[in-house]
């Protein structure tokens, strides 16, 4: 038999958007329906379509072509992020950022990739029975995603003025400089990773697995919010949803997809919410629990000279000497910061001190401290609204303080003359001698600090024991057959490093299991 040639479009993606829908009822049939088009969903769509399955992908967010990406974070937040960038924990002090568009968070992340440390694979084997996820099994999968997504260590030119200064500070203090590995090809060094890469250098799902899936016949619907997962006799049989006109917020059509395989990839907040709403897969009572999010804080450093850290590689440098929990539990990351972010990260004092601080923007850089956190939060429904109940654990706050102290000392060693802490009260440090006292005196209080989280995770954790976990070691829910999870909900513990490559690899692993089972 002559094989049909598989051809990937050179640019863009074939997506059915709300504007394309004419009927008020859509009823589709497929071999697999994938809920979400981010890291896990796109990989599942590609792998299943390549295996010959008829695949439908449903994405709640809009399809924004990369030429429309604004290179302005404030506008990108409004168009590409969950809740227009306004998603927070219930205390309102942690901004929980997720992409909400075709391609999901892979469109707006900084492309930083780390393999899952062996420490966690061993921990997961010991505590969650995931003896299948050995380094020997996972290494070839990491190698595959690294090839597919062009994950490479930054070259010497892929840096930024701020990173160069921070590197000098690290050298002076004897900290190892970690060179970032990123899924970026021929980086244009604009520094706008968080606003989406308008020239498609970032190898997000938008320009990799999704067009590959479409080339293999997958169909993508954007603006389509799944409202219920359907099951019959303990097996998943499809989903119901609504197609919402993004311009008006009004429902345009109802949609149902009948499929004997349902793959949940809506992300670690929407996936548990949808399972809870569908009253499925929760005999353990663990759906939505064990939420972690890698809280991070940015310290802003003011230099006595211009730095102009306006453009360059968004992230290029990290310091992970103390990242594993028994070493300290924090990682430091440089990042370019545009004025909108700088405008609320520091508290120099209301009025004139604030005007003076922002007037010196070109002399400032930031260094981020991100912590490995306990899985102490919960995602649930309250009064018909989602609720992310999460407070930084006291033990985790001590890890944050250690990270902030290292951050501050590195920034002073880099030549900073003043540091601003991300607090609600006025706080700056003018001398390295004061670092331990000032940061050591911080107390763990809600609504006191300005946290950001880019890494929600853990709400449908994977493990062997159906009483303690939601998903089995092969990615299928313990309770409902043919219902799979392939997003960061799976992670049994937080991992202290950017989890994107872990999600890519777990999605591949789960798909391999799914396909083998049905071969």
């Amino acid at each position, binding site marked *: 038999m002559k094989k049909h040639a598989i051809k990937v479009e050179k640019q863009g993606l074939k997506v059915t958007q709300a504007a394309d829908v004419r009927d008020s009822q859509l009823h589709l049939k497929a071999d697999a329906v994938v809920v979400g088009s981010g890291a896990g969903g796109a990989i599942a769509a590609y792998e299943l379509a390549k295996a010959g399955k008829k695949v439908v992908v449903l994405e709640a967010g809009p399809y924004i072509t990369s030429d429309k990406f604004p290179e302005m974070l*404030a506008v990108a937040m409004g168009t590409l992020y969950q809740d227009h960038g306004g998603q927070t924990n219930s205390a309102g002090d942690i901004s929980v950022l997720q992409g909400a568009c075709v391609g999901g968070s892979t469109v707006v992340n900084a492309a930083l990739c780390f393999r899952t440390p062996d420490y966690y694979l061993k921990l997961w084997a010991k505590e969650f029975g995931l003896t299948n996820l050995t380094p020997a099994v996972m290494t070839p999968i990491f190698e595959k995603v690294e090839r597919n997504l062009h994950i490479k260590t930054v070259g010497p030119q892929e840096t930024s003025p701020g990173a160069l200064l921070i590197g000098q500070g690290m050298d002076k203090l004897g900290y190892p400089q970690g060179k970032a590995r990123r899924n970026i*090809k021929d980086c244009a060094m604009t520094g706008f990773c968080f606003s989406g890469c*308008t*020239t498609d250098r970032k190898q997000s799902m938008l320009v990799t697995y999704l067009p590959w899936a479409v080339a293999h016949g997958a169909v993508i619907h954007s603006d389509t919010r799944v409202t219920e997962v359907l099951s019959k006799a303990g097996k998943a049989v499809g989903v119901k949803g609504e197609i919402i006109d993004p311009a008006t917020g009004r429902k345009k059509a109802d949609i149902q997809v009948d499929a004997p395989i349902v793959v949940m990839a809506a992300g670690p907040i929407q996936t548990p919410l949808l399972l809870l709403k569908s009253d499925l897969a929760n005999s353990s009572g663990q759906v939505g629990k064990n939420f972690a999010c890698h809280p991070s804080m940015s310290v802003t450093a003011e230099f006595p000279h211009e730095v102009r850290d306006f453009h360059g590689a968004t992230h290029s440098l990290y310091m992970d000497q103390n990242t594993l929990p028994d070493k300290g539990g924090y990682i430091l990351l440089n990042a370019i910061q545009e004025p909108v972010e700088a*405008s609320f990260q520091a508290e120099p*004092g209301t009025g004139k001190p604030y005007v003076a601080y922002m007037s010196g923007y070109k002399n400032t850089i930031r260094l981020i401290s991100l912590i490995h956190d306990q899985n102490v939060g919960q995602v649930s429904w309250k009064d018909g609204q989602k609720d992310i109940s999460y407070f930084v654990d006291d033990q985790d706050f001590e890890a944050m303080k250690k990270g902030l102290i290292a951050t501050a000392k590195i920034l002073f060693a880099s030549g900073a003359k003043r540091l601003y802490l991300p607090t609600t009260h006025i706080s700056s440090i003018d001398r390295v001698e004061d670092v331990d006292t000032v940061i050591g005196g911080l107390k763990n209080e809600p609504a006191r600090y300005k946290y950001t989280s880019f890494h929600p995770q853990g709400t449908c954790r994977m493990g062997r024991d159906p009483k303690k976990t939601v998903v089995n070691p092969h990615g299928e829910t313990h309770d409902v057959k043919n219902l799979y999870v392939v997003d960061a909900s799976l992670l049994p513990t937080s991992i202290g490093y950017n989890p994107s490559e872990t999600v890519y690899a777990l999605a591949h692993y789960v798909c391999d299991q799914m396909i083998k089972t049905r071969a």
Partner: protein
Amino acid sequence: MHLDTPSPLNQALTVVARLSRRDFMAFAGAAVGVAAGGAASVAQAQAPALKSINAAEAAIFRRVAEVVLPVGGSALTPWTPEVLLGTLDAALLGTMPPHVLAGLKGGLQYFNEGPVAQHGKRFTALDDATATAFLDAWGNAKEVPHRALASGLKKLVQLSYWANPASWAPLEYDGPISQRNGLKSLGNAPLPTR
């Protein structure tokens, strides 16, 4: 919450008490995004009608902005209430979920009544120095809602100002560069070969 004496402060507290703690607090962090076209298009607009807040609420935001962004005499770009409040309304408040916006409105009243006990005046009636000290004091308050309100309201007006590209010139920040530098798209990646 039970309050015996009717007063503007007690009325405000009653409004706040009706809101769940989650709604009240969530607005503080819910102000990050500026919806598509918000900053750029609103900046061009002439005194757009405010849809999400009434005149009294707008007056509180205006006073917060005057205290937080006293750019007169500095190199920073002057702002007008019409443009700043227009951005705030269209791009930030207009995209908030209704329960979060309701939390904000309750909190805004509570905040405005905050100085009455100590200063005998609402926030909108305080002089610049007292209003500045009040915001700083609430940012360091023992009460969690006070910190959340001071921080959240400041953040809203700061974002509304800095989201406007006209505010960047004095910082020498040059904004988007891909189009200006003629950078070409690499398009979609080819299929993996293995």
